[in-house]
């Protein structure tokens, strides 16, 4: 089963995305706590994309696809027009350093990497696809 949602790069649209993720995964028996972690990671990825790659231009669109198949990791694809914000290229800052420096940012990358099993970037049909995987028990397609 594949679920698709297209949104403009406006931070206020993050709630729509979170609701879409919750609703899609909720249909497959995914435990609520797992859903909330996945929502957290994707919220982070999408807000990074909106802010850093598109400067919150509401006219710029990207797509989120969720693929659920029996016995396989759930695949999340964030499909963009080619602008890359590759979190694999960013180091995870130590929590102690962030606190000491009174920083507000820097937590997100750590969060995504600790929640998702795999994060990779691929090119497909002229678009950049950020592909994230998460193996969740009891996910039924």
């Amino acid at each position, binding site marked *: 089963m594949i679920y698709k949602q297209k949104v403009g790069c406006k*931070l*206020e649209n*993050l*709630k729509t995305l*979170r609701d879409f993720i919750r609703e899609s995964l909720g249909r497959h028996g995914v435990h*609520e*706590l797992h859903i*909330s*972690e996945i*929502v*957290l990671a994707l*919220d*982070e990825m999408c*807000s990074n994309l*909106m*802010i850093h790659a598109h400067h919150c231009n509401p006219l710029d669109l990207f797509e989120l696809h969720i693929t659920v198949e029996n016995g396989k990791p759930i695949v999340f694809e964030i499909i963009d027009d080619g602008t890359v914000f590759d979190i694999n290229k960013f180091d995870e800052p130590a*929590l102690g350093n*962030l*606190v*000491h420096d*009174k*920083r*507000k*940012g*820097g*937590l*997100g990358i*750590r*969060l995504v990497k*600790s*929640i998702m099993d795999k994060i990779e970037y691929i090119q497909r049909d002229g678009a950049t696809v950020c592909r994230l995987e998460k193996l969740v028990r009891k996910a039924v397609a």
Partner: protein
Amino acid sequence: MIHIKRLQEDGADVMALVGEIDASSSIDLDLAIAKSVGEGFTKLLIDCSALEYISSAGLGVFMSYIEEFREKSIQMVLFGMNEKVANTFQILGLNELLKIAADKAEAKKMLA
């Protein structure tokens, strides 16, 4: 979308967070805490019982005050988190760096 309700109890500023805190609304939390500190409060109780969601942007706001509050001897205790919100703090280990209580009574006891 987040609504922040403030009231004062026993010299503490009690801030109730209602709704969801994400990248679009974390600024409201930041401004509310800054306002409270600016007004001279040294005891902050953050009521999370109606907080449905917090993203890393919201966690970052709390994190950014840890050092300042330590320097200025300002106490902040969060309380009433639901399981999912509590889990978010735990994933990053922020539960070790912030004071978190089960309910308001326990939170008040944690204020020295």
